[in-house]
């Protein structure tokens, strides 16, 4: 049970910018979808038209509601949650550098997958990621990469005979 002594923040008018932007974006997408349906057969267009019109209307309502603003209850400090209750996503607090590094590795994986295919990517990416991001030794990274790739190969290519991304050079 968390308790606090109050140091109340007075109620204030708050414009939720995320809702505002999200509302504008979705209203625009829905309006765009509605415009697209105008060139279609009646039977093909009737349902998408209804959905996009409804979506655009709701988007506008959200935008208007965001612009009018909502009365917030007094702010409640985050420290009130016990450590056990803190399951915050790091997306809320990540720095620009964290985002750049993470997205770099994330996008890098899929680019490598597209160019080199699954198994070469599994080996190279694992070694690189463990060496650079986790400071593991070359030997550990290499053995882990080979084991991981071996398990993937066994599961997908031998047991399940699944097609996997082969890359531009057909390496997998």
């Amino acid at each position, binding site marked *: 049970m*968390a*308790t*606090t*002594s*109050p140091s*109340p923040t007075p109620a204030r008018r708050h414009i939720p910018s*995320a*809702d505002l932007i*999200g*509302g504008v974006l*979705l209203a625009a997408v*829905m309006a765009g979808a509605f415009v*697209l349906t105008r060139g*279609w*057969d009646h*039977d*093909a267009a009737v*349902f*998408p038209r209804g*959905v996009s019109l*409804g*979506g655009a209307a*709701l*988007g506008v*309502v*959200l935008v208007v509601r965001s612009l009018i603003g909502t009365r917030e*209850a*007094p702010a*409640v400090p985050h420290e*009130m*949650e016990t450590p*056990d*209750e803190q*399951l915050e996503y*790091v*997306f*809320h607090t*990540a720095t620009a550098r964290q*985002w750049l590094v*993470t997205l770099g590795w994330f996008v890098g*994986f*899929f680019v490598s*997958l*597209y160019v080199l295919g*699954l198994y070469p990517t*599994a080996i190279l990416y*694992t070694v690189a*990621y*463990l060496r650079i*991001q*986790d400071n593991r030794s070359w030997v550990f990274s290499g053995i*882990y*990469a080979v084991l*991981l790739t071996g398990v*993937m190969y066994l*599961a997908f290519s031998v047991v*399940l*005979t699944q097609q*996997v*991304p082969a890359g531009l050079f057909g390496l997998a």
Partner: protein
Amino acid sequence: MADALLQGLLQVLTPQSLLMMVVGVALGFVVGILPGLGGAVTLALLLPFTFSMDPVPAFALLLGMYVVAATAGDITSVLFGVPGEASSAAVVLDGYPMTRRGRAGRALGAVLTSSGIGALVGAVVLVVLIPLIRPIILNIGPPEFFALAVLGLTFVVTLSSGKLLKGALACLFGVLVSLVGLDPATGSPRFTFGLLELWDGISIVPVVIGLFGGAEVLQLMMQKGSVASTNPASASVSGVGAGVRDALRRWPLAVRSGAIGTGLSLVPGMGGSVAQFVAYGHAKSVSKNPEEFGKGSVEGVVAAGATGVAKDCGSLIPTVAFGIPGSASSAVLLSAFLILGLDPGKEMLTTELDVTMSMVWIALLATVIAIGVALALVRPLAKLSYVSGPLLIPFLLLLLSIGAFTENNSWTDVLVMLAFVVVGVACIRWDWPRVPLLLGFVLGEILERYIFLSNSLFGAAWITRTPVLAIGACIVAILASHFVRERRAARRLQMAASAAAAGPAVDLSTEHRSHDREGVL
């Protein structure tokens, strides 16, 4: 009926059938744990092996694999937040937060046990409904199916506490995305932007994996720690018994969720992807601690887990009784019926009733075997949540990409998955609900199909059919009760805030949590 049940059991207990079932269970584990490898694809791959088999061993292999995949899919959802199956997405909502708190063992124990209870419910419903199903199903037409789909959507949208408008908008966006591809009635391309790759539409697997799994992998990449945020030395990896007891204590919830899973799966297309969230929503709406949902509620795990095998039993009913597959996997099973010389429909309910009953036993026994094996492996599995995050990242990225790719062996699906990773992260970052979007996507095609059929068959008069009006009344009641609940919650929050402003220390944690958890759905 009793004779057929006994005959069915005896046929399942032959060495060949048992061996095939064990092989099916082992394959089901692999398929279920690996994201994207849906039951339908693997069923199709296994079909050629059944050509020379008798019906019961063949179904022991196919059905054993199929039902176990649903249970095993929950394991990946709990441990890594990446749904092993599309129908395991709801388990992520509370199972993964439990893992992050160091309660992976307890979450796995609860989800596996509830899956077993759900399987039992599904099997009982299957046995009871098979003789009665024809008149029931024949009285349900496209207008009722449409109304049921709207009811499901309403139910889920209203669960986006405090964000009904955003939930509805997300839902409509999901419906819009589901319309990408060739129009089934006219064959003209819609929202394909000239890309041939989009003519077949967007598959559910990359959407689910991107929306739920992608965000969790990015989170793990950023935080660099293990999945479980607690100290491994202090956390209990062995809470399996507690998890099992949690599920057993909440057996009424598991039974109701199993019934929801079975019932909704009777409607073609509304299988596990919808049922799991409806069951989850039901658990939240009747819970004494709804504020815990999304933060590691055992009730959420039990409800979502119970639909796993139950929905497979449900989807078997229309397949067996009418030859109408309720899902892609049921369609492959249907082709197995034909290959094995069985004729779905009257024959399966009369002369071949023992084969039908053997399916009930196979579903039950395979689930029991799978749960036994999984429970034995829970300790090492739960320890995975303490493995260093960077060690898991390459493995999880490979699973994400293969999961998306193998659905159609297409890079388009990988790109779709990446697009939904962006959507999923944006939803979390800016507090938009993800589940209504997914449900809108799942139900969009069904809504369009049934409204088209309803209008073609009955004109506008379908709205006045009694079952449709009754379902409409339920929708109104759900919306009304939602607004009443929201109003009460707002009033309580306001009173607590006023008390905090006026008096000394006051407990605001509950109110704050209920406000903070809005992102759950």
